[in-house]
């Protein structure tokens, strides 16, 4: 009969913690090597000289009127590319979303969906996933080689990628909202398009529009990035200036870009608040 010993005061979680710490370090080491992570290179004399010169050029930013006019024009082109791309994306996304949503399924009204409509819906969804997953930069690279440098490549790249994104989210919004109205219309013999317009659109319109406006704001950012591969707009100008080490021009364009993004952010937030 031994007296009950007090519980051992070794931290039971200690072994586990040591194990995970070692495992993390074991993963970190090769990651550092693979990414050539050498922060000391940033402060080597040559690098410092180049950085210093480049960063020094940033101030003062180039504010010469001719250049500012160019930047303003490129800004407009960036917004135009994004808007045109979104418009095309809508043209593609809306039919696909309507085709893919199970809320408008006539065969599912009494019970389970039939095989063929189900397969068709899954196929459209797979198409949406593929469109979403390929980065828009890749589309832009392909289109630049097909139609040449310029805004067309950017518009098409945004159209395809965003049609996938919009299509998927529209589909989800339609499926999560109440289907009673649409189903009633379908049961009474209305066409699917009618059921959508009168039964689903009124309740989902706010959410759909809100998401579309948010994506338009993202598209503006994308379109600036696509410019780096030749799709025109502010990005292409920035790329040109960077290649020529014109720090003051880059500084102006960065500031203008941040302003543009901020404005679009604000406009989108205001619009979504009023609608939603």
């Amino acid at each position, binding site marked *: 009969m031994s007296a009950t010993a007090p519980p051992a005061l070794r931290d039971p979680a200690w072994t586990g913690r040591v194990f995970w710490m070692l495992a993390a370090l074991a993963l970190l080491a090769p990651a550092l090597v693979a990414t050539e992570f050498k922060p000391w290179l940033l402060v080597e004399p040559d690098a410092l000289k180049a950085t210093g010169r480049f960063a020094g050029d940033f101030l003062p930013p180039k504010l010469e009127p001719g250049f500012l006019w160019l930047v303003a024009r490129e800004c407009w082109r960036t917004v135009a590319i994004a808007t045109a791309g979104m418009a095309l994306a809508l043209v593609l996304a809306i039919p696909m979303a309507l085709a893919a949503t199970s809320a408008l399924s006539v065969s599912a009204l009494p019970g389970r969906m039939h095989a063929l409509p189900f397969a068709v819906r899954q196929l459209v969804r797979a198409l949406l996933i593929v469109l979403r997953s390929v980065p828009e930069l890749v589309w832009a690279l392909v289109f630049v080689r097909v139609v040449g440098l310029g805004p*067309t490549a950017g518009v098409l790249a945004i159209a395809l990628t965003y049609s996938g994104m919009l299509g998927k989210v529209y589909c989800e919004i339609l499926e999560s909202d109440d289907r009673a109205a649409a189903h009633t219309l379908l049961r009474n013999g209305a066409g699917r398009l009618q059921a959508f317009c009168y039964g689903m659109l009124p309740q989902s319109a706010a959410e759909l529009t809100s998401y579309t406006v948010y994506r338009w704001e993202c598209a503006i950012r994308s379109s600036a990035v696509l410019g780096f591969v030749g799709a025109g707009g502010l990005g292409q100008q920035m790329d040109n200036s960077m290649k020529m080490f014109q720090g003051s021009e880059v500084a102006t364009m960065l500031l203008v870009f941040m302003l543009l993004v901020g404005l679009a952010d604000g406009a989108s937030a205001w619009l979504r608040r009023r609608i939603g």
Partner: protein
Amino acid sequence: MRDWKSGPSHAAAWGFLAALAALTAASFWSLDLQWAKFLSADAARRMGRFLLELLAPTAEPAFLRKLAVAGAETLAMSALGTLLAVLAGLALAVPAARTHAGERALWRWPTRLALNGLRSIPELVWAALLIVAAGLGPFAGTLALALHTSGVLGRLFAEAIENAPPGPAFALRAQGAGSAKLFFYATLPQILPQLLSYALYRWENNIRAAAVLGVVGGGGLGQLLSFHMGLFHMRETSSILIAMLFLVALVDLASYLARRVLQR
């Protein structure tokens, strides 16, 4: 059922949307879009050939080895970039958050401004800028991801800190514990699962971004892609695209599983 048709406030919103439609029309008109070029027979033929070649990826061993190395590089870039962003984001989030009413939080606005600046510059632009300092290759890509993501995560972390339940911190503050101790003993334990969840979501985004950063010289699969596409090697391009999609799916799965574990 949302009441979307009534109210004078909605009139302004719909007016704006009409303006948006006008903007769309103006966009199409002002850009000199090469519809003719896109829809021409020549373009159609080229697209057709591209698509056909894209459906026939190459499996040549030497190339697959290069692909594996580039893939590992991209994965490492995304992971390391996200990790650095978590540390930097947390470091910036602490001054950017007002932890309790009555705290002066002098650094709040400057830090929030810095976070917004970091966020608004896309990863690709950061990469292009950093190549001047860090040279071509994955180092610039990692730093670019880290800088952009720290802006995003910093803001999310600051919001999490501000929304953390105040009870534990209140009791310790009443005992006179300093803000650093309060952070580690009262705030961080409550928000850590949320922070990790945000970080994992951003990792999913960053693997996609890392894959394409190489196009401006940021290393990894992107650099390989840009090289082969420039030479119209569509079969290699196809393999690279498949590798990209595979990597994205892998990270999405890893992130999902990790988040499931966190919720236990």
